Protein backbone atom coordinates (compact mmCIF):
# COMPACT_ATOMS: atom_id res chain seq x y z
CA UNK A 1 0.00 0.00 0.00
CA UNK A 2 2.77 2.44 0.91
CA UNK A 3 4.81 1.49 -2.12
CA UNK A 4 6.65 4.38 -3.75
CA UNK A 5 9.25 4.45 -6.50
CA UNK A 6 11.92 6.97 -7.53
CA UNK A 7 11.55 8.72 -10.89
CA UNK A 8 13.17 11.56 -12.82
CA UNK A 9 11.22 14.72 -13.58
CA UNK A 10 11.30 15.62 -17.28
CA UNK A 11 8.85 18.47 -17.77
CA UNK A 12 6.70 20.61 -15.47
CA UNK A 13 3.25 21.72 -16.46
CA UNK A 14 1.51 23.68 -13.66
CA UNK A 15 0.54 21.26 -10.89
CA UNK A 16 1.59 18.30 -13.02
CA UNK A 17 4.85 16.89 -14.24
CA UNK A 18 5.99 14.35 -16.78
CA UNK A 19 8.30 11.82 -15.18
CA UNK A 20 10.43 8.94 -16.36
CA UNK A 21 9.92 5.95 -14.09
CA UNK A 22 12.23 3.18 -15.24
CA UNK A 23 11.67 4.05 -18.90
CA UNK A 24 7.93 4.64 -18.62
CA UNK A 25 6.74 8.22 -19.10
CA UNK A 26 3.92 9.08 -16.67
CA UNK A 27 2.05 12.24 -15.84
CA UNK A 28 1.92 12.88 -12.07
CA UNK A 29 0.65 15.53 -9.65
CA UNK A 30 3.30 17.70 -7.96
CA UNK A 31 1.05 19.71 -5.58
CA UNK A 32 2.96 18.25 -2.61
CA UNK A 33 6.42 19.20 -3.98
CA UNK A 34 5.83 22.57 -5.70
CA UNK A 35 9.55 23.45 -5.76
CA UNK A 36 10.50 20.52 -7.96
CA UNK A 37 12.50 21.25 -11.15
CA UNK A 38 13.22 19.23 -14.31
CA UNK A 39 16.15 16.89 -13.71
CA UNK A 40 15.22 16.31 -10.04
CA UNK A 41 14.39 12.88 -8.73
CA UNK A 42 11.17 12.42 -6.78
CA UNK A 43 9.56 9.55 -4.96
CA UNK A 44 6.13 8.77 -6.41
CA UNK A 45 3.19 7.24 -4.57
CA UNK A 46 -0.20 6.68 -6.28
CA UNK A 47 0.35 9.31 -8.97
CA UNK A 48 1.70 12.02 -6.65
CA UNK A 49 5.30 13.02 -5.96
CA UNK A 50 5.62 12.93 -2.15
CA UNK A 51 9.27 13.99 -1.73
CA UNK A 52 12.23 15.31 -3.70
CA UNK A 53 15.18 12.99 -3.19
CA UNK A 54 18.92 12.83 -3.40
CA UNK A 55 19.96 12.37 -7.07
CA UNK A 56 22.90 10.06 -6.54
CA UNK A 57 21.04 7.59 -4.30
CA UNK A 58 18.01 7.63 -6.59
CA UNK A 59 20.19 6.61 -9.50
CA UNK A 60 21.70 3.79 -7.44
CA UNK A 61 18.24 2.50 -6.56
CA UNK A 62 17.06 2.67 -10.15
CA UNK A 63 20.17 0.69 -11.17
CA UNK A 64 19.27 -1.90 -8.55
CA UNK A 65 15.68 -2.16 -9.86
CA UNK A 66 17.11 -2.62 -13.36
CA UNK A 67 19.35 -5.45 -12.14
CA UNK A 68 16.33 -7.12 -10.54
CA UNK A 69 14.41 -6.83 -13.80
CA UNK A 70 17.23 -8.46 -15.73
Amino acid at each position, binding site marked *: *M*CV*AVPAKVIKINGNNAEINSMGVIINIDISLV*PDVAPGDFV*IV*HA*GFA*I*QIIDNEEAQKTLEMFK*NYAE
Partner: protein
Amino acid sequence: MQNNIIALIEEIKRTANGLSQINIMEVCGTHTMAIGKNGLRQVLPQNINLISGPGCPVCVTSISDIDNIIELAENPCNYIFSFGDMLKIPGSKSSLYKKRSEGANIKVCYSPADAFDFAVKNPQKKIIFIAIGFETTAPLTAALIEKAYETKTNNFFIYNTHKIVPPAIEFLLNSSNKNNISAFLCPGHVCAVTGSRPFDFISKIYGKPAVISGFSAEDILKSILMILKQIKNNKPEVEIQYDWVVKENGNPIAIQYMDNIFDINDAIWRGIGNIKKSGLVLKNKFRNFDAKVSFALKDVLVPEPRLCSCGEILLGVKKPFECRLFGKSCKPDNPVGPCMVSSEGTCSAYFKYEKYKT
Protein backbone atom coordinates in the same frame (compact mmCIF):
# COMPACT_ATOMS: atom_id res chain seq x y z
CA MET B 1 25.37 -6.00 -3.87
CA GLN B 2 25.32 -9.69 -2.97
CA ASN B 3 28.64 -9.28 -1.16
CA ASN B 4 27.25 -6.35 0.83
CA ILE B 5 24.36 -8.50 1.96
CA ILE B 6 26.54 -11.42 3.01
CA ALA B 7 28.78 -9.02 4.95
CA LEU B 8 25.75 -7.44 6.62
CA ILE B 9 24.33 -10.80 7.68
CA GLU B 10 27.72 -11.74 9.15
CA GLU B 11 27.91 -8.47 11.06
CA ILE B 12 24.37 -8.93 12.36
CA LYS B 13 25.31 -12.41 13.59
CA ARG B 14 28.39 -11.07 15.35
CA THR B 15 26.51 -8.18 16.95
CA ALA B 16 23.56 -10.32 18.04
CA ASN B 17 25.85 -12.89 19.62
CA GLY B 18 25.39 -12.82 23.38
CA LEU B 19 22.26 -10.67 23.30
CA SER B 20 19.03 -12.09 24.68
CA GLN B 21 15.89 -12.57 22.56
CA ILE B 22 15.12 -9.43 20.49
CA ASN B 23 11.64 -8.88 19.07
CA ILE B 24 11.65 -6.31 16.28
CA MET B 25 8.28 -5.21 14.94
CA GLU B 26 8.07 -4.10 11.33
CA VAL B 27 5.07 -1.81 11.41
CA CYS B 28 4.61 -1.46 7.66
CA GLY B 29 2.97 -4.05 5.39
CA THR B 30 5.38 -3.19 2.58
CA HIS B 31 8.25 -4.17 4.93
CA THR B 32 6.46 -7.45 5.76
CA MET B 33 6.33 -8.20 2.03
CA ALA B 34 9.99 -7.27 1.47
CA ILE B 35 11.11 -9.39 4.44
CA GLY B 36 9.12 -12.40 3.18
CA LYS B 37 10.16 -12.02 -0.44
CA ASN B 38 13.86 -11.80 0.41
CA GLY B 39 13.72 -14.64 2.95
CA LEU B 40 15.22 -12.41 5.64
CA ARG B 41 13.58 -14.23 8.57
CA GLN B 42 15.47 -17.35 7.55
CA VAL B 43 18.92 -15.74 7.47
CA LEU B 44 18.77 -13.92 10.79
CA PRO B 45 20.23 -15.41 13.98
CA GLN B 46 17.75 -17.27 16.18
CA ASN B 47 17.60 -14.62 18.88
CA ILE B 48 16.24 -12.05 16.40
CA ASN B 49 12.52 -12.40 15.95
CA LEU B 50 10.74 -10.20 13.39
CA ILE B 51 7.08 -9.53 14.25
CA SER B 52 4.65 -8.01 11.76
CA GLY B 53 2.56 -5.07 12.91
CA PRO B 54 -0.71 -3.35 12.02
CA GLY B 55 0.65 -1.40 9.03
CA CYS B 56 -1.60 -2.71 6.29
CA PRO B 57 -4.35 -0.08 5.89
CA VAL B 58 -6.71 -2.44 4.08
CA CYS B 59 -6.43 -5.00 6.90
CA VAL B 60 -7.38 -2.54 9.62
CA THR B 61 -10.43 -1.12 7.81
CA SER B 62 -13.52 -2.10 9.81
CA ILE B 63 -16.19 -4.46 8.41
CA SER B 64 -18.71 -1.68 9.00
CA ASP B 65 -16.79 0.57 6.58
CA ILE B 66 -16.71 -2.20 3.96
CA ASP B 67 -20.47 -2.70 4.35
CA ASN B 68 -21.05 1.06 3.96
CA ILE B 69 -18.94 1.19 0.78
CA ILE B 70 -20.90 -1.78 -0.61
CA GLU B 71 -24.13 0.07 0.18
CA LEU B 72 -22.84 3.09 -1.78
CA ALA B 73 -21.94 0.82 -4.70
CA GLU B 74 -25.47 -0.60 -4.79
CA ASN B 75 -26.83 2.77 -5.94
CA PRO B 76 -26.51 2.90 -9.77
CA CYS B 77 -26.06 6.71 -9.65
CA ASN B 78 -22.78 6.29 -7.73
CA TYR B 79 -19.33 5.61 -9.17
CA ILE B 80 -16.85 4.09 -6.71
CA PHE B 81 -13.11 4.60 -7.31
CA SER B 82 -10.82 2.41 -5.24
CA PHE B 83 -7.30 1.04 -4.97
CA GLY B 84 -7.35 -2.60 -6.11
CA ASP B 85 -6.71 -4.24 -2.73
CA MET B 86 -10.03 -3.08 -1.29
CA LEU B 87 -12.14 -5.03 -3.77
CA LYS B 88 -11.49 -8.51 -2.37
CA ILE B 89 -12.28 -7.73 1.26
CA PRO B 90 -15.38 -9.55 2.40
CA GLY B 91 -17.89 -7.37 4.24
CA SER B 92 -20.55 -9.04 6.36
CA LYS B 93 -22.62 -9.99 3.28
CA SER B 94 -20.73 -9.26 0.07
CA SER B 95 -17.57 -7.71 -1.39
CA LEU B 96 -16.87 -4.99 -3.95
CA TYR B 97 -15.69 -7.66 -6.39
CA LYS B 98 -19.05 -9.41 -6.20
CA LYS B 99 -20.89 -6.12 -6.56
CA ARG B 100 -18.83 -5.23 -9.61
CA SER B 101 -19.63 -8.57 -11.25
CA GLU B 102 -23.30 -7.79 -10.61
CA GLY B 103 -22.93 -4.55 -12.57
CA ALA B 104 -22.10 -1.93 -9.93
CA ASN B 105 -19.97 1.05 -11.04
CA ILE B 106 -16.69 0.20 -9.32
CA LYS B 107 -13.44 1.32 -10.88
CA VAL B 108 -9.90 0.49 -9.77
CA CYS B 109 -7.63 3.51 -9.94
CA TYR B 110 -3.87 3.91 -9.60
CA SER B 111 -4.11 7.53 -8.49
CA PRO B 112 -6.86 9.33 -6.57
CA ALA B 113 -6.45 12.10 -9.17
CA ASP B 114 -8.13 9.74 -11.68
CA ALA B 115 -11.29 9.80 -9.53
CA PHE B 116 -11.24 13.59 -9.32
CA ASP B 117 -10.71 14.01 -13.08
CA PHE B 118 -13.64 11.67 -13.75
CA ALA B 119 -15.81 13.79 -11.42
CA VAL B 120 -14.89 16.99 -13.27
CA LYS B 121 -15.71 15.39 -16.63
CA ASN B 122 -18.98 13.87 -15.43
CA PRO B 123 -20.75 16.50 -13.31
CA GLN B 124 -24.08 14.62 -13.41
CA LYS B 125 -22.54 11.53 -11.77
CA LYS B 126 -21.63 11.08 -8.11
CA ILE B 127 -18.01 9.97 -7.65
CA ILE B 128 -16.84 8.43 -4.39
CA PHE B 129 -13.13 7.81 -3.86
CA ILE B 130 -12.32 5.26 -1.15
CA ALA B 131 -9.73 7.26 0.79
CA ILE B 132 -7.61 4.67 2.56
CA GLY B 133 -4.06 4.69 3.86
CA PHE B 134 -1.71 6.24 6.36
CA GLU B 135 0.30 9.47 6.17
CA THR B 136 1.80 8.40 2.82
CA THR B 137 -1.61 8.60 1.14
CA ALA B 138 -3.59 11.11 3.26
CA PRO B 139 -1.86 14.21 1.77
CA LEU B 140 -2.97 13.09 -1.71
CA THR B 141 -6.58 13.01 -0.56
CA ALA B 142 -6.09 16.36 1.18
CA ALA B 143 -4.76 17.97 -2.03
CA LEU B 144 -7.80 16.72 -3.94
CA ILE B 145 -10.31 17.89 -1.32
CA GLU B 146 -8.75 21.34 -1.48
CA LYS B 147 -9.05 21.26 -5.28
CA ALA B 148 -12.67 20.07 -5.09
CA TYR B 149 -13.48 22.86 -2.60
CA GLU B 150 -11.84 25.57 -4.74
CA THR B 151 -13.41 24.39 -7.98
CA LYS B 152 -16.78 23.61 -6.31
CA THR B 153 -16.69 20.08 -7.66
CA ASN B 154 -19.67 19.04 -5.57
CA ASN B 155 -20.14 15.62 -7.17
CA PHE B 156 -16.79 14.43 -5.73
CA PHE B 157 -16.86 12.63 -2.38
CA ILE B 158 -14.50 10.53 -0.31
CA TYR B 159 -15.31 7.59 1.90
CA ASN B 160 -12.67 8.38 4.46
CA THR B 161 -10.81 5.69 6.40
CA HIS B 162 -7.45 7.49 6.73
CA LYS B 163 -5.44 6.63 9.82
CA ILE B 164 -2.11 7.72 11.29
CA VAL B 165 0.70 5.46 12.49
CA PRO B 166 2.29 6.93 15.68
CA PRO B 167 -0.80 6.49 17.94
CA ALA B 168 -1.02 2.83 16.86
CA ILE B 169 2.63 2.30 17.85
CA GLU B 170 1.95 3.95 21.20
CA PHE B 171 -1.08 1.68 21.66
CA LEU B 172 1.16 -1.35 20.99
CA LEU B 173 3.75 -0.11 23.47
CA ASN B 174 1.13 0.30 26.15
CA SER B 175 0.07 -3.33 25.68
CA SER B 176 3.68 -4.48 25.39
CA ASN B 177 3.44 -7.01 28.19
CA LYS B 178 1.75 -9.31 25.65
CA ASN B 179 3.78 -8.72 22.50
CA ASN B 180 7.10 -7.89 24.19
CA ILE B 181 8.43 -5.63 21.44
CA SER B 182 12.11 -4.69 21.87
CA ALA B 183 12.41 -2.31 18.90
CA PHE B 184 10.64 -0.95 15.84
CA LEU B 185 11.39 -0.88 12.14
CA CYS B 186 9.49 2.28 11.19
CA PRO B 187 7.71 2.81 7.85
CA GLY B 188 9.94 4.62 5.32
CA HIS B 189 7.29 6.18 3.11
CA VAL B 190 5.04 7.29 5.98
CA CYS B 191 8.13 9.05 7.37
CA ALA B 192 8.94 10.57 3.95
CA VAL B 193 5.85 12.68 4.69
CA THR B 194 5.89 13.00 8.50
CA GLY B 195 9.62 13.06 9.10
CA SER B 196 11.16 11.26 12.07
CA ARG B 197 9.96 13.56 14.87
CA PRO B 198 6.45 12.10 15.40
CA PHE B 199 8.24 8.81 16.20
CA ASP B 200 10.68 10.26 18.77
CA PHE B 201 8.43 9.16 21.67
CA ILE B 202 9.40 5.53 20.99
CA SER B 203 12.90 6.11 22.36
CA LYS B 204 12.30 9.21 24.49
CA ILE B 205 9.29 7.95 26.48
CA TYR B 206 9.42 4.18 26.07
CA GLY B 207 13.21 3.76 25.82
CA LYS B 208 13.04 1.50 22.75
CA PRO B 209 15.21 1.69 19.62
CA ALA B 210 13.54 2.61 16.32
CA VAL B 211 15.00 2.83 12.83
CA ILE B 212 13.20 4.31 9.82
CA SER B 213 13.99 1.85 7.08
CA GLY B 214 13.98 1.65 3.30
CA PHE B 215 12.52 -1.32 1.48
CA SER B 216 15.36 -3.28 -0.16
CA ALA B 217 16.90 -6.32 1.54
CA GLU B 218 20.05 -4.28 2.12
CA ASP B 219 18.07 -1.39 3.67
CA ILE B 220 16.25 -3.71 6.05
CA LEU B 221 19.40 -5.59 7.12
CA LYS B 222 21.21 -2.30 7.70
CA SER B 223 18.30 -1.10 9.83
CA ILE B 224 18.32 -4.30 11.89
CA LEU B 225 22.05 -3.85 12.46
CA MET B 226 21.46 -0.25 13.58
CA ILE B 227 18.86 -1.50 16.08
CA LEU B 228 21.25 -4.15 17.43
CA LYS B 229 24.00 -1.57 17.90
CA GLN B 230 21.59 0.68 19.82
CA ILE B 231 20.66 -2.25 22.06
CA LYS B 232 24.28 -3.22 22.58
CA ASN B 233 25.31 0.35 23.45
CA ASN B 234 22.15 0.84 25.52
CA LYS B 235 21.42 4.09 23.62
CA PRO B 236 17.89 3.89 22.24
CA GLU B 237 17.05 6.58 19.69
CA VAL B 238 15.10 7.14 16.48
CA GLU B 239 17.54 6.78 13.58
CA ILE B 240 16.94 7.22 9.87
CA GLN B 241 18.46 4.51 7.67
CA TYR B 242 16.42 5.62 4.59
CA ASP B 243 18.07 9.03 4.72
CA TRP B 244 18.02 9.84 1.02
CA VAL B 245 14.21 9.91 1.16
CA VAL B 246 13.34 10.68 4.80
CA LYS B 247 14.24 14.04 6.33
CA GLU B 248 13.86 14.85 10.00
CA ASN B 249 11.00 17.27 9.28
CA GLY B 250 9.51 15.20 6.43
CA ASN B 251 7.64 17.03 3.70
CA PRO B 252 6.28 20.18 5.43
CA ILE B 253 3.99 21.02 2.49
CA ALA B 254 2.34 17.60 2.58
CA ILE B 255 1.94 17.93 6.37
CA GLN B 256 0.38 21.38 5.87
CA TYR B 257 -2.13 19.91 3.41
CA MET B 258 -3.16 17.29 5.98
CA ASP B 259 -3.44 19.91 8.74
CA ASN B 260 -5.57 22.19 6.55
CA ILE B 261 -8.06 19.51 5.57
CA PHE B 262 -8.23 17.01 8.43
CA ASP B 263 -8.82 17.01 12.17
CA ILE B 264 -7.59 14.16 14.34
CA ASN B 265 -10.14 11.87 15.94
CA ASP B 266 -10.44 8.39 17.43
CA ALA B 267 -10.58 5.53 14.93
CA ILE B 268 -11.58 1.88 14.94
CA TRP B 269 -8.84 -0.47 13.73
CA ARG B 270 -10.24 -3.80 12.62
CA GLY B 271 -9.23 -6.60 14.95
CA ILE B 272 -7.78 -4.15 17.47
CA GLY B 273 -10.61 -1.76 18.39
CA ASN B 274 -10.65 1.95 19.14
CA ILE B 275 -7.28 3.73 19.14
CA LYS B 276 -7.42 7.26 20.51
CA LYS B 277 -6.47 10.11 18.15
CA SER B 278 -5.43 7.70 15.39
CA GLY B 279 -7.89 8.73 12.66
CA LEU B 280 -8.19 11.65 10.27
CA VAL B 281 -11.62 13.25 9.76
CA LEU B 282 -12.52 16.07 7.37
CA LYS B 283 -12.76 19.49 9.01
CA ASN B 284 -16.31 20.90 9.24
CA LYS B 285 -15.71 23.20 6.29
CA PHE B 286 -15.22 20.16 4.06
CA ARG B 287 -17.88 17.86 5.56
CA ASN B 288 -20.00 17.98 2.36
CA PHE B 289 -17.28 15.97 0.62
CA ASP B 290 -17.57 13.22 3.24
CA ALA B 291 -19.65 10.40 1.74
CA LYS B 292 -20.55 9.15 5.22
CA VAL B 293 -22.19 12.51 5.99
CA SER B 294 -23.67 13.24 2.55
CA PHE B 295 -25.15 9.76 2.13
CA ALA B 296 -26.15 9.44 5.80
CA LEU B 297 -24.24 6.22 6.50
CA LYS B 298 -23.82 4.81 9.99
CA ASP B 299 -21.22 2.72 11.80
CA VAL B 300 -22.61 -0.63 12.84
CA LEU B 301 -20.62 -2.94 15.06
CA VAL B 302 -20.11 -6.19 13.14
CA PRO B 303 -18.51 -9.19 14.90
CA GLU B 304 -15.28 -10.66 13.48
CA PRO B 305 -15.41 -14.14 11.90
CA ARG B 306 -15.28 -16.96 14.47
CA LEU B 307 -11.81 -18.31 15.42
CA CYS B 308 -10.06 -15.64 13.32
CA SER B 309 -6.87 -14.45 15.07
CA CYS B 310 -6.28 -11.32 12.96
CA GLY B 311 -6.60 -9.04 16.00
CA GLU B 312 -3.83 -10.80 17.90
CA ILE B 313 -1.73 -11.06 14.72
CA LEU B 314 -2.03 -7.30 14.08
CA LEU B 315 -0.88 -6.66 17.65
CA GLY B 316 2.11 -8.97 17.27
CA VAL B 317 0.85 -11.32 19.99
CA LYS B 318 0.41 -14.28 17.62
CA LYS B 319 2.13 -15.37 14.41
CA PRO B 320 -0.07 -16.54 11.53
CA PHE B 321 1.00 -20.19 12.11
CA GLU B 322 -0.62 -20.01 15.54
CA CYS B 323 -4.05 -19.28 14.05
CA ARG B 324 -6.23 -22.38 13.66
CA LEU B 325 -7.63 -21.17 10.34
CA PHE B 326 -4.30 -20.21 8.68
CA GLY B 327 -3.70 -22.20 5.49
CA LYS B 328 -6.72 -24.42 6.23
CA SER B 329 -10.06 -22.67 5.76
CA CYS B 330 -8.33 -19.27 5.40
CA LYS B 331 -6.24 -18.89 2.24
CA PRO B 332 -5.63 -15.99 -0.16
CA ASP B 333 -8.23 -17.26 -2.65
CA ASN B 334 -10.81 -17.69 0.11
CA PRO B 335 -9.81 -15.36 2.95
CA VAL B 336 -11.62 -15.37 6.29
CA GLY B 337 -9.84 -12.51 8.02
CA PRO B 338 -8.47 -9.21 6.72
CA CYS B 339 -4.78 -10.16 7.14
CA MET B 340 -5.23 -12.83 4.44
CA VAL B 341 -7.09 -10.52 2.05
CA SER B 342 -4.67 -7.76 1.25
CA SER B 343 -1.50 -8.85 -0.55
CA GLU B 344 0.39 -6.91 2.13
CA GLY B 345 -1.51 -8.49 4.99
CA THR B 346 0.62 -10.44 7.44
CA CYS B 347 -1.13 -13.77 6.83
CA SER B 348 -1.09 -13.36 3.06
CA ALA B 349 2.65 -12.54 3.09
CA TYR B 350 3.33 -15.54 5.38
CA PHE B 351 1.19 -17.82 3.21
CA LYS B 352 3.05 -16.77 0.09
CA TYR B 353 6.61 -16.70 1.42
CA GLU B 354 6.88 -18.45 4.77
CA LYS B 355 4.29 -21.20 4.87
CA TYR B 356 6.87 -23.99 5.00
CA LYS B 357 8.37 -22.69 8.21
CA THR B 358 6.72 -24.06 11.31
